[in-house]
């Protein structure tokens, strides 16, 4: 099904009410985020590949806090937007969301458990694809601790410490990053020493990671980071009943006190 035309008309409609709509634009064969401010630009509108727009939205809002903006959101981007709003990185009051559902192929590629938006929007462009079960997660669950070590060492040893995973992550917005501090992660060593670099990142994304797979897509070494984060996400849900990006009200669990019976 063609999603571009309905998406284009949805943006056209929204442009009457907002200053600009953040979506993807294809120029000379390159797709990049673009703030569409006029209808004539929409000829260059692109739907895929996936590119996390909430991170771009955050930058635009930081420079123009008063701007009324629209944004095209896939399921993962919506979840990302919610988590960022909870941490005061974006102001959702000034943002209108246009939903976009992923195709079954895209959902399959991302091993996505919820490939459509449904919290901030009631309808979306495109049809809902079925959730996909991450086989690699199940596979890793079956392994014992030593086998897991072997699995991850094989992957982490290919790391070139380019920080692409952190840079691409919409949830990584700290002005100062622990991964750049020599105290915790040695400088000048490639691959970064195990277990600090990757496990620090895994810890820092716990309760935040929405499984958008940007880290994995941007990784030049093809490390299946999403799998590790997905395992942790399941545990955070099990331990604290918290699912990142599921709703706007629940507070992130890792900063709240434990509920103790007195």
């Amino acid at each position, binding site marked *: 099904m063609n999603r571009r035309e309905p998406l284009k008309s949805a943006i056209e409609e929204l442009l009457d009410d907002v200053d600009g709509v953040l979506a993807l634009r294809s120029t000379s064969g390159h797709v990049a985020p673009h703030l569409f401010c006029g209808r004539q630009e929409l000829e260059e509108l692109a739907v895929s590949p996936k590119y996390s727009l909430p991170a771009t939205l955050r930058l635009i809002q930081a420079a123009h806090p008063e701007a009324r903006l629209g944004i095209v959101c896939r399921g993962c981007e919506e979840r990302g937007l919610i988590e960022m709003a909870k941490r005061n990185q974006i102001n959702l009051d000034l943002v209108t969301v246009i939903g976009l559902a992923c195709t079954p192929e895209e959902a399959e590629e991302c091993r996505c458990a919820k490939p459509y938006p449904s919290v901030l929007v009631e309808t979306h462009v495109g049809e809902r694809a079925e959730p996909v079960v991450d086989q690699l997660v199940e596979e*890793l669950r079956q392994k014992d*601790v*030593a*086998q*897991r*070590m*072997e*699995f*991850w*060492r094989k992957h982490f040893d290919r790391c070139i410490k380019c920080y692409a995973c952190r840079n691409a992550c919409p949830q990584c917005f700290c002005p100062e990053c*622990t991964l750049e501090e020599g*105290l*915790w992660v040695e400088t000048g060593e490639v691959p970064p*020493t*195990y*277990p*600090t670099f*990757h*496990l*620090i990142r*895994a*810890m*820092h994304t*716990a*309760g935040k990671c929405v499984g958008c797979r940007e880290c994995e897509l941007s990784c030049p070494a093809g490390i299946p980071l999403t799998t*590790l984060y997905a*395992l*942790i996400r399941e*545990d*955070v849900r099990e*331990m*604290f009943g918290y699912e990142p990006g599921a709703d706007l009200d629940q507070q992130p*669990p*890792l*900063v*709240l*006190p*434990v509920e*103790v019976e*007195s």
Partner: protein
Amino acid sequence: MWGPQIVAYACTYCSYPGADLAGTSRIKYSPNVNIIRVLCSGRVSPELILRTFREGADGVLVLGCHYGDCHFISGNHRTAKRVAVLKRVLEYSGIDPNRLRLEWVSASEGARFAQVVDEFTETVRQLEPMERVLA
């Protein structure tokens, strides 16, 4: 017998005096433990624990005040959640989660401190040296 290297982070208000009491009460406990005093168990960040492992510690013990006793009110609450998550992270990435343990030891629990340390040392002794795991 193999003697594991254990690093214990003890908070300055409860667990460190607890360890002190174990000493002044002449309670014997495992000599494998190296105690590091921290201002609050909430100060023990995942980075710190991971670096301790990387430096070759075979086990990391985080000791803090009981709930309600924290000098900083909720420092130990944060540690409790953080350590629980970190244990899972370690488990999934191939480090035995039993190498990390969180316990509450108050200033009056010298005997409990000794017991926790002894038990933990025995647990870690059953595992492979960290040096070999990370090699």
